[in-house]
């Protein structure tokens, strides 16, 4: 259930004028007049104001939006228990049990529609499909009436890949000629996982209609954190401060379990013993700041609706489920920095192509270039071509040259009685101050490989590794 214009439902939104709501410099919502001028969610504020100079810009206030949305959530919850608030204006309702109770999907949708219209007014879009991802898209596709999807897989197949919302991945998919979720779902899962990593695997599952099902696992009771307040807190700011410390304890407690929650249950007990509970959901695993923020929004919603009489006596947070990809560290120190690093590298990859973003690992070999095995970033490293532990006679000792030309480059060296005397660097000749070698590489003569001698040559302008092969001298590395 989705209110596309929920953020614009505020008293300071001017009727009859183009209007947008902005958070962190990005357009989050806009009304029809602004949309007609070309303003779209996700656009930078400055760009939107250039397109529509008359637009009225309002700063986002998520806490106020959440507080206002509480009435809608409560109305739906009176019909179906355990609703999940994804963001103010967007609600997920698990309907498997309720469909049987109300005698089918249509009677259930009718009741929910009526309850929502009463609590939140017109403008709600209802979508019914398998899983939150498809349900959200069904709601987006819905008009005045609800959109009930009979075949979720077929519904998703025709949608553009941009609905995945991962900009870099979508750009790369388009570059590869994959434009619809159907085309993405038809690709081998292993190939997608290999190319895009966990994010690709998740996208492939979503595209194939296999949305992540929330299957609460039995978690130790110790993972639930709570704070008791005596006397009960009447000040929202104090409660929000306590929420931050609770969020920290919740995430810290989950750390050893290797998980991060996609859903968090916020429970508040008032001084009079009234217990309120709400589940918040996030597409990405919750971090500490996000949990604290959701708790703050929720508390404000309850306080403003008079839901915590006598003040807050107990605040309790519990993870409703854990992600299996949450805080398993791979590249970054934590899930947030890992995600940022992955996004940054994916953006770079979209710019320079998959062959331009590389990782390497050591392997055996004689030449410096041979001792490095490259592979594309995001793909598993292949098995080493040369055994690192083998002796490799003729191998150069460290330190290694920092620069190694990808292909041999001719180097002019003057020899004096078998010793290198001068090296041509650009337009000038540099005298050789010292030299070491040769390290002889006999080559596999039975496959036509030439023998080569390698020398370290030191000049006042730097040190070089050169290779003499077939009577010619080549630059093999620069000790830069």
């Amino acid at each position, binding site marked *: 259930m989705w209110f596309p214009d929920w953020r614009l439902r505020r008293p300071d939104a001017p009727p009859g004028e183009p209007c947008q709501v902005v958070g962190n410099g990005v357009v989050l919502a806009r009304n029809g007049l602004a949309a007609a001028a070309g303003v779209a969610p996700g656009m930078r504020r400055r760009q939107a104001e250039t397109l529509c100079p008359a637009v009225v810009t309002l700063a986002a206030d998520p806490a106020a939006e959440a507080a206002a949305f509480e009435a809608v959530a409560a109305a739906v919850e009176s019909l179906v228990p355990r609703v999940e608030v994804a963001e103010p204006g967007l609600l997920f309702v698990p309907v498997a049990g309720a469909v049987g109770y109300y005698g089918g999907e249509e009677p259930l949708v009718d009741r929910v529609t009526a309850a929502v219209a009463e609590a939140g007014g017109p403008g709600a879009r209802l979508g019914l499909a398998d899983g939150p991802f498809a349900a959200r898209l069904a709601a987006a596709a819905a008009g005045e009436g609800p959109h009930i999807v009979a075949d979720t897989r077929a519904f998703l197949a025709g949608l553009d890949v941009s609905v995945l919302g991962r900009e870099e991945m979508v750009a790369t998919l388009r570059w590869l000629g994959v434009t619809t979720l159907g085309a993405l779902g038809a690709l081998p899962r292993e190939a997608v996982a290999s190319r895009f990593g966990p994010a690709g695997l998740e996208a492939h599952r979503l595209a194939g209609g296999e949305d992540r099902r929330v299957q609460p696992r039995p978690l130790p009771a110790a993972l639930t954190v709570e704070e008791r307040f005596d006397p009960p807190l009447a000040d929202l700011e104090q409660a929000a401060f306590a929420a931050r410390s609770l969020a920290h304890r919740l995430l810290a407690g989950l750390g050893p379990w290797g998980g991060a929650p996609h859903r968090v249950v916020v429970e508040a007990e008032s001084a009079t013993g009234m217990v309120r509970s709400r589940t918040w959901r996030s597409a990405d695993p919750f971090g500490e700041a996000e949990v604290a923020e959701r708790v703050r929004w929720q508390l404000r919603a309850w306080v403003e609706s008079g839901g915590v009489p006598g003040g807050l006596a107990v605040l309790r947070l519990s993870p409703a489920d854990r992600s299996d990809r949450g805080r398993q560290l791979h590249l970054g120190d934590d899930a947030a920095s890992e995600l940022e690093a992955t996004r940054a590298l994916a953006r770079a990859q979209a710019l320079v192509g998959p062959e331009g973003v590389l990782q390497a690992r050591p392997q055996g070999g004689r030449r410096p270039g041979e001792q490095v095995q490259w592979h594309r970033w995001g793909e598993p490293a292949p098995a080493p071509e040369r055994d690192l532990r083998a002796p490799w006679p003729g191998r150069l000792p460290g330190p290694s040259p920092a620069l190694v030309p990808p292909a041999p480059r001719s180097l002019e060296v003057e020899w004096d009685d078998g010793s290198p005397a001068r090296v041509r660097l650009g337009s000038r000749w540099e005298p050789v101050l010292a030299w070491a070698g040769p390290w002889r590489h006999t080559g596999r003569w039975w496959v036509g490989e030439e023998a080569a001698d390698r020398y370290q040559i030191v000049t006042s302008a730097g*040190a070089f590794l050169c290779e003499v092969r077939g009577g010619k001298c080549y630059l093999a590395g620069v000790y830069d």
Partner: protein
Amino acid sequence: MAELAREQAAAPAALARPVPGAEPGRVLGLVGPPGLGLTRLGLSLLADPARRGPVAVVDVRGWLCPRAAWEAGVLPEHLVVVRCPEQGLWGRVTAALLEGLPAVYAEVPAGAGEALLRRLGALARVRRAALILRPLRGGLPSGLAHLSLFGEAVRWEGAGPGHGQITRRWLSLRAAGRGAGGVEQVLEVVDDGTDALRVVPRLAAAPAGRAAG
């Protein structure tokens, strides 16, 4: 290594000073002609941030050998090399990396404009990322780098007239900028192929080298 560790423990504090590091939100410039050892110095500065997460190198020429970075202490699994020979993309690629990585070492192509470099510096400040710039030709715009290290000279040890092997280098640097306290300083870096890069005062250079051998 044990000898080196003993020597470091016994050395005066000035001899064991670490090399100026790549600081979050700051630009470090490495300026000097190729061959002076600034590439290896830049890679060694990535070793510390690479202990905490991934770091990237923007390789304009396609020549970078990651072995030098590994020898300098950069974890292979945390080093990502981005090859960007196209000058038009260089700024966007570097900016994309600064958005999400804690440290980026970027070779600066000859045609990179001052405005672009200043934008990258501002982005590094905003994102609290360490940016190490290594211009392939010329220098950096004035005031851009928090600390600029100018390569003055390099001296290699270990190789003789037809014998031995390169084992160690002494790199003379001139440090300037706000990171140097606004006063130009001369320092010398010794690198023996391990990750134990050290700054030594010039006068102490010779004894320190002898003892560490």
